[in-house]
């Protein structure tokens, strides 16, 4: 009995420890105290007003969303085709190709970022929203591939054959059989591709310049100056987006 209580409290403590940093940021973003105090004595929405009332923060938010949507669509569509090919086709060097696509996950982001920066500076692409989205899709591609390969493995090839036999075209099979069956996986892939881009700092830091500054980059720039509660408000927004994405994923998984 004592053992049980002890284990339970240890477990609760671990959970608290894991979540504490995140919870404290959220609570702090509502704090109305003059200086940093925990727990806060007054509550206010001031920091959110400052966040949304500031042009640079608003621009950063817009940039982040546009880039993430672009990267998500690009990575998911390209990743879907690649995963389908890797799951279905018998082709040479399958393992090597998979490892290559997964590579950006393991190569330190700083190196990837510096390399793309070096390249983009020559082409005058630094600060271009579309280009940042393309760069993000490279680091989102491994995530998409891992999710979609698993999802597509669950699609029975006989269903595709059946559709084909009944006169469905290749594209028709794709649109009416494969995509609907893999839909929960596709949704997961899109969500995590979006998050990968939305949360990325390192690639954006090099590529965004001033024009395409994203939320994480603006947080970074503010942090190197001063730790102020507006950042807590912005962080809370990022945390909220993560939670929403995870919840949608949870629902999508039910239908797998």
């Amino acid at each position: 009995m004592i053992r049980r209580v002890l284990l339970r409290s240890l477990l609760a403590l671990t959970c608290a420890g894991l979540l504490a940093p995140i919870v404290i940021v959220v609570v702090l973003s509502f704090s109305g105290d003059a200086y940093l105090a925990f727990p806060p004595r007054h509550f206010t929405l001031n920091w959110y007003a400052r966040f949304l009332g500031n042009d640079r923060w608003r621009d950063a938010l817009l940039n982040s969303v546009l880039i993430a949507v672009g990267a998500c669509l690009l990575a998911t569509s390209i990743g879907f085709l690649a995963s389908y090919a890797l799951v279905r086709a018998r082709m040479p060097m399958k393992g090597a190709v998979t490892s290559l696509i997964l590579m950006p996950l393991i190569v330190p982001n700083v190196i990837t970022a510096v390399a793309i920066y070096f390249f983009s500076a020559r082409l005058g692409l630094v600060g271009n929203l579309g280009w940042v989205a393309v760069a993000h899709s490279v680091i989102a591609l491994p995530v998409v591939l891992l999710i979609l390969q698993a999802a597509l493995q669950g699609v029975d090839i006989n269903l595709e054959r059946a559709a084909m036999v009944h006169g469905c075209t290749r594209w028709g099979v794709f649109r009416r059989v494969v995509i609907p069956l893999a839909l929960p996986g596709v949704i997961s892939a899109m969500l995590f591709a979006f998050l990968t881009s939305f949360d990325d700092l390192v690639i954006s830091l090099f590529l965004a310049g001033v024009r395409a500054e994203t939320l994480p980059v603006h947080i970074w720039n503010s942090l190197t100056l001063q730790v102020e509660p507006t950042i807590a408000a912005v962080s809370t927004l990022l945390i909220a987006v993560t939670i929403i994405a995870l919840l949608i994923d949870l629902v999508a998984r039910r239908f797998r």
Partner: protein
Amino acid sequence: MLILPALVLLAGVFVVPLGWFLIGAFRELGEDLWPQTLAILTSRAIRTSVVLTNWIALTTTVAALALGYPIAYALTRLKGLAFSCLIACVVLPYFTSIIVRTYAWMVLLGRTGVINQILLDIGLVSQPLALIYNRTGVIIGMTYVLLPYMVLTLYSAMKSVDKRVLQAASGMGAGRLTVFLRVFLPQTLGGIAAGALLVFILSIGFFITPALMGGQTDLMAGMLVEREVEISNNFPVAGIMSVLLLAVTLILYAVYLRVADMRRLLTA
């Protein structure tokens, strides 16, 4: 055919820029390629950075293993609501932006931060502790950021341990400790190796957390690359450090692929 777009994207925005950057960096060295490369490799800045990077990565790996093992073990034993709570506590930070998690620890560990306030209030210390802008801060921050990778890797390894073997061992009279040490632990060694390798690989290339939470003079490998490019515009040094970092990363990745399957990380 379908794989072509992915390969084009990867080639255009990953492989070619990487090759260009590295070749360009070495080309700047001109004629005396080897002597110069050697000189840079053995320079004090790079040596210090390599030692520091390894030290921080090792400490982080050990810390993540020490914290992650019990959490992963708990995950295998829990059911229902308790399981969902714990897994949520692991997964939510995992998918939260690294910059947000780092900022959270800056708020916690600062001189007037939450932890120092609590310690001062209960009178455990009379001066605020220096928990940030030094190596302690970096290690705490990095361990927190990388812990989920360790937990999920260990959990997927532990899940595949056959419970009946454990029951057999205790049925034949082994105590709880013996079952754990001689039956359970040895079967999770593969998971430990995979988790430790993964965390170590990610640690040596880390940039955000050490840059924000570390001391001014402590340059880890990733920071050195960034500094040399952004501030000193010294591409050869950045290039050589990148090659070194890349080589170590890829070698360890090859080893990692032998012991683990990356797919497990997301499907766990």
